[in-house]
């Protein structure tokens, strides 16, 4: 038996950027995950452009004015920042967020990761920042490209909106930021459930099924729950007051909607960090 002892090789100071770079390598080396987001972004922009392009004919030949109804007004906000694209980006970002977390747990990779980096908060912090960052980028690209291209098309019909309008700015920002919020919610569900199917199903329920259950005009409390679900703020933030659409009497304020988004993001991050740190890997 040897009595010689091995010293730990000189260890450089730990840096958060190393963890961020490691997460970037992980994300980049799994093509399927980031393709989901890239493809969804392209399709989302395409859907918005196509919708507005198809509308040009209707704008040129407006329907006859019904007696007693206000004159027809084209809502450029509603059509250029469409809800189909928003839902598509929401499910893509939510899935990406969930996959990056449950993917590590279901494969067992998380144990290899935490054996290499016992600082769990650092690891999950890097994941949150990276996924939050790239989904924000995707949201901003989809939102701005949709807004500018659609309204450029509409400009020739003099119904386009300008970005200098504060309502437009709010709408473009809200439409972009809902994407990272969904990604963070997805990460939290992935961390809580650690199961592929369960995470995705609960994501779909939270984003698309729950709004159907918490609506209607009969009970205010039901309605209030509905307007504080993760995707609800987008409707309010992209609402164009200068349109024929009227808001429900219980509609949340703009500030309320921003807070709702912020709270979902903050609670999701807190829940993710908490369960990942507390539970056995």
């Amino acid at each position, binding site marked *: 038996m040897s009595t010689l002892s091995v010293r730990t090789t000189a260890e*450089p100071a730990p*840096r958060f950027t190393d963890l961020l770079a490691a997460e970037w*390598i992980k994300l980049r080396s799994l093509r399927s995950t980031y393709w989901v987001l890239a493809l969804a972004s392209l399709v989302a922009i395409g859907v918005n452009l196509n919708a507005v392009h198809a509308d040009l004919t209707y704008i040129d030949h407006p329907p006859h004015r019904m007696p007693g109804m206000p004159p027809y007004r084209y809502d450029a906000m509603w059509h250029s920042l469409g809800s189909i694209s928003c839902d598509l980006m929401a499910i893509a970002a939510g899935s990406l967020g969930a996959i990056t977390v449950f993917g590590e747990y279901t*494969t067992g990779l*998380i144990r290899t990761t935490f054996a290499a*980096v*016992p600082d769990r908060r650092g690891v999950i912090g890097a994941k949150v920042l990276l996924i939050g960052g790239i989904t924000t980028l995707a949201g901003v690209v989809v939102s701005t490209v949709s807004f500018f291209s659609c309204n450029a098309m509409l400009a020739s019909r003099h119904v386009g909106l300008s970005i200098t309008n504060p309502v437009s700015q709010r709408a473009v920002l809200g439409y972009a930021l809902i994407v990272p919020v969904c990604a963070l919610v997805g990460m939290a569900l992935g961390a809580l459930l650690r199961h592929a199917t369960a995470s995705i199903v609960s994501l779909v329920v939270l984003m698309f099924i729950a709004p159907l259950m918490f609506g209607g005009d009969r009970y205010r409390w039901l309605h209030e729950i509905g307007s504080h679900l993760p995707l609800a703020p987008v409707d309010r933030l992209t609402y164009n007051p200068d349109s024929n659409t009227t808001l429900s009497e219980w509609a949340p304020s703009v500030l309320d909607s921003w807070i709702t988004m912020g709270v979902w993001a903050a609670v999701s991050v807190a829940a993710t960090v908490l369960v990942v740190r507390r539970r056995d*890997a």
Partner: protein
Amino acid sequence: MIEIERLTKRYGATTAVDRLSFTVRPGAVTGFLGPNGAGKSTTLRMILGLDSPTAGRATVDGVPFAGRPRGLRHVGALLDAGDVHGGRSARAHLAALARSNRIPLGRVDEVLAEVGLGKAAGRRIGGYSLGMKQRLGIAGALLGDPPVLLFDEPLNGLDPEGVLWVRGLFRRLADEGRTVFVSSHMMAEMEHTADRLVVIGRGRLIADESLAEFSARNAETSVAVRTPELAALAGVLRGEGAEVDVTDEQFGIVTGLPADRIGELALRHGLVLHELATRTSSLEAAFMSLTADSVEYLAGDAR
């Protein structure tokens, strides 16, 4: 050096690890033995801070591993060769690990070459055989050139050449003064690999000693005798303090006296011997009877 003090892990009513205490020292390969479900993997996960103990503590070089910001330069571990994402290449998998610990990326190709995966480095891990995954896991453990290495069942799935290579590697790592802790449920694997043994059963410590001490204490020697005059011989041998287990009219197993003494006694009393053979039970058998005892003892104890 790995120090375990009264380490305990309970899952509800089940106690996976029960007040376990032992020390794994540098400069030797220490085998960690126990039957399936003995609590080996749970213990290793607690050493790495992946699972938190219900009670007690585990430290590596005096510090709980979970308290370190980065781990690869302190402990290299292969827990389960399957703890990887099958969609990544071996190189990408190791690159992410290396980067997180600020280890130069050149080290990745170095360890891949060392474990013999140089040519397969760019392939998806999902397509690897179990043996290749074990090699990848070993490569990951070596990345940070750590003074302490943990391996959970590293020989599973390796071909004979791979087994020889791994044994050589463990020996070299120990000779370099590192702490090498290797779990297995097969005594036969450890017989040719380990210098020291930590044996557990049902989460409790059964033995913690050198391989030589373990075999001296546990590998029992007995002598088989065949004689038409067994009853008479048995009387003589018992008179000398031996135990005779009479199997049939002419055949018995004697413990407590060596074969040469039995031969002399037979001659002195004029008894005919047809067969006289020394038997040494294998370490595997010793290990099995030891752990079987612990199971019985615990089953009665728990009630």
